[in-house]
Every structure is written in C-alpha cells, then in structure tokens.
C-alpha cells in the first residue's frame, strides 16, 4: 500500500496542474508518529504533504460536502461507499468529485499496538505486511494482519466501489463465513447481560461527540443532541442521557453505516461504538439484503417503502 502514495501524488499533481479540481482531500502525517490527519491541498507544490499508509483510519468522505468547485478525494473501499451514500442522499453530485480510489488491505489498530509498549512510540514504518514500531526503549517488528482494526478484519469491500482513478492494483476481497460474529456474541446473551454489556461499554463516554463528528453520515445542520428547543436529550453525564445519545446516534445510521470504523478511530475513550451500528448493519443485510453504499442508484432501505418490506414487528 505504501507504493500507492507515489501514484496518489502523481494523480493529485496532474489534477491540480490541469485545473481539473480546486482541491485534493487526502491524508498528511500527524503531529505524532503512527498518526495521520486529513489535509486539503490546493496547489501542486503541496502534493508531497500527502501520505497514505495503514494509519489512515478516518473517513475522507466526511469532508466532501459543501465544497465550492470540484474536489478530488482519496477513498478506501469504505470511504467510497460513504461517497456513494452522499451522492444518493444529495449531499454532493457525482460530477463534483474526482475519486482517487485506493484498494485497501486494512488499517491498523493503533491502541492495540500502543498497548505493546509501556512508553511512547517514536517511529512507525511499514513495508507491505510488516510493521516496524519503535519506542524509546524497544523496537518491534509486527505482522500487520494481526494488528488490523476489528472492522477491517470483517471488511468485504476493500476495493473502492466507484472511482475515477485507481492508485494501486485491485486487491483480493476477503470471504467470511460469518461476517457478524461480534453481533452474534451479543445476541446470544439474555436481556440483562446485554444491558450490562452496553452499560459497561459506554460507562466512560465523555460525550465529546468525536464519534459523531468523524462519521460522514452525521451531517445534520443541528444534531438532535445539540438542539435546545425542544431539548431531546439531556446534555450532561446522566447515564440515561448517554444511553439515549448512543442509541439514537446509531439508529440514525441504520441502513447507511459502512462500518468504516472512523467513529471508533476518533473516540478518545476507546469505546467500540460499532457494537451499536453493527447490529443495524446485520439486520439491514438479513431483512433487506442491503449493504450500504454499494449502488449509486438505490436508496437506503429505511428511506423507501416497498410492499415486500418485513413487517412482522407490527401488530
């Protein structure tokens, strides 16, 4: 995946030079090792700022809305599905974006790697499936496959579903016998154990809303948690308010979530909020045969009525 950066820079440089796009949205190195952050560049001189590696876990589809003129965006498989969702939901027009697709082999779980070291990581490099991580006292060579984020190990759409350019060769998609083992585990619990699981999951939530802000699906001008007239949900740390936030944030993503993992990536408290959305993804698939963002011509299942919709829940 690291070789694709040359291709990305080459494409970006050409697009900016020819004036085909005003800006390129990509990733740049972060301020600490083993981190990248989104960057917008608008001149050819800056293309060297662009990087792409296994730490680019945020979702750049989040930044393509409300842009003036045409923009280019670098998109992994999941990002491209969120771009499709944006197009379907009229947040951006297909001809306003130039998609530089990157076939993806997964992003790393930074917390899991950090946990191997007692001190700060000072250097991170990768070569294919080999990660080299250095702290001030130690150096480790790791196999990337063992340190993927949960959502990446369960991903079945690594290749971008739409693109104008490709920055690398398409990769082999994973085939999984059971794509939802995590959901099954929770489903097997009884009601009280489920409740306990989610209580513990969100007990450290500080309501910073980073999960919401990182998610490309959350683009309402005023989010229900910020609304004050009427105030739908209390704004403090009351546990019921925290539960309400998580329940509704997830439900607003029903049939739209691509399991990109940006929400989990952004959470400072290391909360796997995907435990909520994954259930909705599984239900969408089982009830509607639907996976979000695969088809530019189809609206999400909760957006449309069809006589065949499952209705066993209603009396």
């Amino acid at each position, binding site marked *: 995946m690291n070789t694709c950066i040359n291709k990305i820079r080459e494409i970006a440089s050409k697009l900016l030079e020819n004036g085909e796009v005003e800006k390129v949205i990509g990733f740049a190195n972060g301020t600490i090792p083993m981190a990248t952050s989104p960057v917008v560049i608008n001149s050819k001189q800056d293309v060297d700022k662009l990087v792409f590696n296994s730490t680019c876990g945020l979702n750049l589809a989040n930044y393509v809305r409300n842009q003036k003129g045409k923009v280019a965006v670098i998109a992994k498989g999941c990002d491209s599905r969120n771009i499709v969702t944006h197009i379907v939901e009229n947040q951006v027009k297909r001809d306003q974006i130039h998609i530089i697709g990157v076939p993806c082999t997964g992003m790393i779980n930074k917390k899991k790697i950090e946990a191997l070291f007692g001190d700060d990581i000072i250097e991170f490099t990768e070569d294919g499936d080999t990660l080299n991580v250095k702290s001030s006292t130690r150096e480790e060579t790791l196999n990337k496959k063992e340190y993927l984020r949960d959502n990446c190990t369960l991903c079945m759409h690594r290749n971008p579903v739409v693109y104008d350019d490709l920055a690398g060769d398409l990769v082999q998609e994973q085939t999984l016998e059971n794509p939802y083992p995590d*959901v099954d585990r929770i489903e097997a619990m009884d009601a009280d154990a*489920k409740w306990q699981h989610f209580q513990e999951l969100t007990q450290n939530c500080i309501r910073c809303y980073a999960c919401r802000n990182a998610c490309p699906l959350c683009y309402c001008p005023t989010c229900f948690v910020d609304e004050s007239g009427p105030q739908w949900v209390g704004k403090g740390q009351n546990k019921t308010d925290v539960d309400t936030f998580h329940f509704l944030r997830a439900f607003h993503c*029903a049939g739209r979530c691509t399991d990109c993992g940006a929400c989990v990536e952004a959470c400072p408290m290391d909360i796997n909020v995907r435990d*909520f959305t994954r259930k*909705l993804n599984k*239900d969408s698939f089982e009830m509607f045969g639907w996976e979000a963002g695969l088809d530019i011509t189809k609206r999400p299942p909760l957006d449309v009525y069809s006589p065949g919709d499952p209705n066993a829940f209603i*009396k």
Partner: protein
Amino acid sequence: MMGNLLEHMGIEKDRVHFSWISSAEATKFVDVVKEISDKVRAIGPNTKFVKDYI
C-alpha cells in the same frame, strides 16, 4: 429495526410494541392494549433507560 436495536441493547422483547390502529378500529385497540398490558405486567416494572429526577 429500532425495536431490534432496543432488544439488542437489553430492553426485554415484550417491553416495546408497535402497532397500527385506525381510529375506526376500536376493538383492535382494546385487544392490542390488553395484550400489551398483559405482556408488560408479566415482565414487571422497567428499570432500564429510566432517568431519575432528583
């Protein structure tokens, strides 16, 4: 899907019910309310998603 998510989060299956009853369907209304009351009574008072106002 909302009901399923609530159930997934640990709300008992019989706690939340969905129904569509026309204003002309008085008997259906009575039947549904009866059924709901019976089911909810069977699982007892709700302790989840409750906010205390002190």
